[in-house]
């Protein structure tokens, strides 16, 4: 089991329900503790193709290709992955592709690893500079409503939207060794 606390939290299920409601058919991700339950839901869902990526920027191409093929896609990444995507996000802006990104935050709250702070502290600013609207969620009770709104806006208006799932929401990472 990965080392994140509170793997029992059910808010990822609400995100998965919105993926189904919004008819999202491809989900790209780099394995991540904070997204582990949602990733598992997507893998188990026969209507969703899960695509494990070697780096997050691959997911930007995946979203573009899925859209060109008439399907909807979403990306799951950690805040560090946002930095890997920056040039590739030009594809989203240049062609007005919808882009829904769910970002698990690191380096901002009870972070044990100082190396996570440089990217985590600029993640939201980077996304905005790349043309994304950003929503931030700190409390489990807000996940359903905010992710629902993000799904609707991304695909109704061909808008890039990132939902930041804060480190406080995800839970403190336990260093167990």
């Amino acid at each position: 089991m990965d080392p994140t606390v509170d793997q029992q939290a059910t808010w990822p299920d609400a995100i998965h329900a919105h993926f189904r409601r919004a008819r999202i058919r491809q989900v790209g991700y780099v394995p991540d503790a904070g997204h582990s339950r949602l990733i598992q839901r997507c893998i188990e869902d026969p209507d969703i193709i899960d695509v494990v990526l070697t780096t997050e920027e691959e997911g930007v191409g995946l979203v573009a290709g899925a859209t060109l093929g008439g399907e909807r896609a979403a990306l799951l990444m950690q805040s560090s992955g946002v930095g890997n995507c920056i040039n590739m996000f030009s594809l989203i802006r240049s062609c007005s592709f919808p882009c829904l990104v769910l970002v698990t935050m690191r380096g901002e709250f009870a972070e044990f690893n100082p190396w996570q702070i440089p990217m985590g502290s600029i993640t939201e600013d980077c996304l905005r500079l790349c043309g994304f609207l950003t929503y931030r969620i700190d409390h489990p009770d807000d996940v359903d409503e905010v992710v629902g709104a993000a799904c609707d806006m991304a695909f109704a208006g061909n808008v890039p939207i990132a939902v930041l799932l804060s480190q406080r929401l995800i839970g403190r990472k336990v260093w167990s060794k």
Partner: protein
Amino acid sequence: MLDRRGCVRALLAERGDLLVVSGLGAPTYDVAAAGDSPLNFYLWGAMGGAAMIGLGLALARPKARIAVITGDGEMLMGLGSLATIGVKQPQNLAILVLDNRHYGETGMQASHTQYGIDMIGIAKACRFPETHTISRESEFTEARRLLHAAHGPVFIQAHVRQEEVARVLPSRDGNEIKLRFLQAVAKLDQV
């Protein structure tokens, strides 16, 4: 060594409903020179992303055939995507790398392939069931079969001459290229 324009023209002749993604730089001009089509998605940037756009398309349209036509430099920037494609094993995706062993757009500096970096070996290691190298026109027939019909994912490396060819420029408006592509794909569905 092949003439890049002649190679792309030969491999795209009578292409039917083939969906084509072209990597930035010379491959985009080569694909445009072979005959503009609304089923071409031309890249002018997003270097390293062509193969992944092909994967997203291939997964979204499993009954369509997808060809990614790109250069050695563009493919080198997205080598990880070959591993990602290898995991998904899309049968309908083919990648054609026009390998001139140089970065043509930036002044013909040497690329990694010139130093013996073996892209076919990488594709094989990434579980591409069909990999093939061509360097003569007599091999076009087999390359066409692989590109259009073989059980993929397919990886073809075409050894092309290092030469500057006149640019044939398609639209640079990403929205226009996207909308035209989407409309053309929607028409295919109506038939």
